[in-house]
């Protein structure tokens, strides 16, 4: 078992009994202004520092401050921390912290029977019941006490008492109550206060009284846990057995930004990032603006079209050029993506998917832009598509996208999603020396005596990336069809056919340069589960459970969506049934069926939420062969 660093082990030790468990799933819920996201992030970081494997699921409304106290305004943060490798933030909750009635009634359904419900008693008053549209105090219902371990804490009052010496007034004092809650949660799960203490000092250092009050609230919360009779024991989760190495906790959008910076360095290129603010992609911009000293130029354009067109302009000039958006913005970029494809110029287009269509569900996750990425352009305009499978994987996908873009002279689409973008996990920090070198060669200047051929091609059908400023290579690019080799405008019918075929073949050939698809489980059997993007964790865990039950179920998770690795067809045909779980109405399923003529069964959901492991296990089980499923049916009957 991995050793946790003694320096970060609990700085305060509980005197009550401690129960060791393998993992805990906890959700923290309150008003969107209650600081629940901060609480969740801190608990995650602290758990990661304690050596646990962690996975998170922040879930918040699209409104910045939705009406206070209402169900629409509830903001939640779920985290699972465990002493074993985990891939999801957990299905059912072991503990739920609620700051008001709205948070309780909208989240209680996910708390397991016998789970711990911690409620801020001071938030359960008449006025709040009305806002939450509940008839009576939901905490008083007898069924609640019978079903859960309910711990009512007067958090508002206790926080005010704890910070009274700083004379902040109730309004500011009440803002400290998330730190009180944090202290209590930290006590319950044996977490060290030290990382959060440091965080408070860093963040509020310029306001010493606020820093001191938050620290006092945090400690008071911990002390309350230690002294109150309501908590009989605390829980401990040992460090997980992760691969040896140095780790940090990372969110998907953050990892994507770091991956882009790494790709720029690995290729010896400075970066241009043209974008327009949109949820949930904006954090990539916020992250990249910090890296100007890495030669990153960020451009907040006047609209989505300008964002991508400026990116194409930068790419034409020889810079590593990237644009990002979410579904609605990608729709606006469609025409320019077609131009980028026609210019055969390297660049990256990121779509951090959210619930659609139209404005849809801006802060919720979905995978419904796959066909948009495949076909959302006029004409025959194939572009390669990659999809990260987890927050940390965003880093590798970014580097890989730039490798493919430059080797093949083509815009590459990255399909991330809101779940990965905002979720976090421990990330094994790569060594810079081990990152792949991305070699880029621009053609050198000539005396111009021979006409330059901008559309000549190498063995991968990539054309040269000749950049302005190079003597003798003056040429013109554009959206009109180009003559093969010369790049002159051409309306010739045979040439158009040839160029269309060539552009498609160039993208198809990428399959030769990506690794074969690996399989989790046997390479043949009863059921193959095929997934892509952010559903990796749930699908992997579900298949793992089914395998442990003795079923012949395997899993492949696609990171290369288009073109797919060359062995996909063979794998699909090696199983009796293929099941494709997706957070859309069956888009990958359609692609697999049309490309490989293999029947596929969909598990489809668009509820703005990720798959739970339980629902996947149940739904996949329905398709097990009779003999195999008999075990399950027998169990049920028994």
């Amino acid at each position, binding site marked *: 078992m*991995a050793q*946790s660093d003694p320096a970060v082990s609990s700085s305060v030790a509980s005197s009550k009994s401690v129960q060791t468990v393998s993992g805990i799933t906890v959700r923290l819920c309150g008003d969107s202004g209650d600081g629940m996201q901060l609480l969740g992030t801190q608990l995650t*970081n602290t758990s*990661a520092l304690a*050596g646990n494997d962690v996975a998170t699921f922040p879930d918040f409304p699209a409104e910045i401050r939705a009406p206070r106290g209402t169900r629409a305004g509830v903001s939640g943060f779920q985290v699972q921390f465990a002493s074993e490798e985990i891939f999801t933030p957990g299905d059912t909750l072991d503990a739920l912290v609620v700051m008001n009635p709205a948070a309780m009634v909208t989240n209680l359904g996910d708390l397991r029977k016998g789970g711990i419900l911690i409620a801020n008693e001071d938030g359960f008053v008449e006025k709040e019941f009305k806002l939450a549209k509940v008839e009576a105090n939901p905490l008083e219902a007898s069924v609640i006490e019978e079903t859960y371990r309910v711990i009512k804490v007067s958090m508002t009052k206790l926080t005010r008492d704890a910070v009274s010496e700083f004379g902040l007034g109730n309004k500011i004092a009440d803002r400290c109550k998330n730190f009180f809650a944090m202290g209590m949660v930290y006590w319950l799960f044996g977490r060290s206060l030290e990382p959060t203490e440091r965080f408070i000092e860093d963040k509020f250092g310029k306001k010493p009284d606020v820093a001191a009050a938050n620290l006092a609230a945090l400690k008071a919360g911990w002390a309350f846990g230690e002294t109150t009779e309501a908590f009989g024991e605390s829980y401990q989760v040992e460090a997980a057995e*992760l*691969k*040896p*190495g*140095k*780790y*940090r*906790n990372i969110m998907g959008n953050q990892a994507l930004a*770091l991956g882009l*910076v790494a790709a720029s*360095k690995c290729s010896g290129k*400075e970066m*241009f990032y*043209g974008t327009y603010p949109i949820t949930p992609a904006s954090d990539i911009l916020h992250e990249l603006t910090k*890296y*100007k*000293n890495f*030669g990153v*130029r960020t*451009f907040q*354009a*006047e609209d989505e*079209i*300008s964002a991508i*067109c*400026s*990116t*194409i*302009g*930068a*790419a*034409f*000039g*020889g*810079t590593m*050029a990237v644009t990002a958006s979410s579904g609605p913005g990608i729709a606006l970029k469609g025409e320019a993506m077609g*131009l980028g494809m026609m210019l055969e110029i390297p660049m990256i287009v990121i779509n951090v998917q959210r619930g659609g269509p139209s404005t849809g569900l801006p802060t919720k996750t979905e995978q419904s832009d796959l066909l948009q990425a495949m076909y959302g352009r006029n004409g025959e305009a194939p572009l390669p598509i990659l999809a990260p499978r987890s927050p940390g994987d965003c880093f590798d996908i970014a580097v890989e996208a730039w490798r493919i873009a430059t080797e093949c002279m083509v815009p590459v689409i990255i399909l991330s999603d809101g779940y990965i973008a905002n979720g976090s996990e421990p990330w094994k*920090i*790569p*060594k810079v020396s081990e*990152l792949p070198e991305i070699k880029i060669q621009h053609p050198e200047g000539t005396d111009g005596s021979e*006409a330059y051929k901008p559309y000549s091609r190498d063995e991968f059908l990539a054309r040269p990336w000749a950049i*302005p*400023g*190079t*003597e003798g*290579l*003056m*040429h*013109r*690019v*554009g*959206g009109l069809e180009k003559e093969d080799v010369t790049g*002159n*405008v051409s309306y010739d019918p045979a040439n158009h056919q040839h160029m269309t075929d060539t552009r498609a073949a160039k993208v198809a050939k990428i399959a030769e340069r990506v690794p074969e698809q690996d399989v989790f489980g046997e390479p043949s059997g009863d059921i193959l589960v095929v997934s892509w993007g952010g559903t990796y964790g749930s699908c992997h865990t579900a298949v793992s459970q089914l395998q442990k039950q003795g079923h012949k179920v395997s899993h492949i998770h696609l990171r290369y969506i288009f073109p797919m690795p060359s062995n996909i067809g063979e794998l699909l045909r090696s199983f009796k049934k293929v099941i494709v779980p997706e957070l859309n109405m069956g888009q990958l399923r359609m692609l697999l069926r049309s490309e490989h003529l293999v029947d596929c069964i969909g598990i489809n959901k668009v509820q703005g939420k990720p798959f739970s492991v339980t629902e996947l296990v149940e739904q996949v089980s329905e398709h097990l062969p009779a003999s195999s499923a008999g075990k399950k049916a027998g169990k049920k009957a028994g």
Partner: protein
Amino acid sequence: MSLPVLKPADFASDQDVRWCPGCGDYSILAQMKKVLPDLGVPREKIVFVSGIGCSSRFPYYMNTYGMHSIHGRAPTFATGLKSTRPDLMVWVITGDGDALSIGGNHFIHALRRNLDVNIVLFNNRIYGLTKGQYSPTSLEGHVTKSTPMGSIDHPLSPLSVALAAEATFVARSIDAHVKHLGETLKRAAQHKGTSLVEVYQNCNVFNDGAMAYAQEKKQRDQNVVELQHGKPLVFDGGKKGVRLVGNHLEVVNTDDVPQDDLLIHDEKDPNPSIHMMLARMSYPVMPEPIGVLRAVEGIPTYDDQINDQVELAKKQKGEGDLDALFNSGDTWVVG
């Protein structure tokens, strides 16, 4: 090393020019080729970026780098290019439909950012490439294929739009007035910041003679006033002039007023109010101004500033170190 002396022909690409015979675009192309050798910028350092429309075929005919992009978006490609490659001289070639209709947003934002590029807007007051629909600069009542009962849109003035965005260089010239056109393009090229040159361009197929009052040599002098910095506004062989009365401009006979009454053109005035009054002068009530309405120097350019910030960040934080970046924040070791 001295640069080779280039001639206009050196700037011609090997492609056949495919505009309609008699199109005003030919004259603009000829003047551009004539002006570029004087600027001392090597061909490989020049990029022409265009949108869509007749005028936007321009880059194909120049032996420089070029991009024929998508409708209305040329300024945005230029923004990405110039921000990352400030060493290049970037020209944007656009038309009245391209810049003011589909690309209106990008046009104003390029101007307000003061990116160091030169925008040449070919204004023929018609959609030529799509065969004759009215454009955002077509006059009210204009009968076209899409407005058989006459246009009911109020026309937009490119100069007014540019001045409203506080563009630092705003000028107008005429395809047929070749000497003036060449000089104006040269001034635009020399200005640091976004330069806008509106060129009255005759579409002899779909809108022939729409601006004949300004294009035809015989009429021009009566209908056009050539602006010159520090000089009074006079036209019609010096017989007429323009003066400022209260908050409007009026035409006077120069014989009837003292010389001092005439408006002295100040292209350098940071306040665009009088420039806007000039832009609003329109035929047949007033003579239309050509030449440089506004040329304000010393305003920081977008491309300089975006690159200055990068340099400053490198100076303050040191050249980016990936290892340090990856290992920032809280970390822990396993194994």
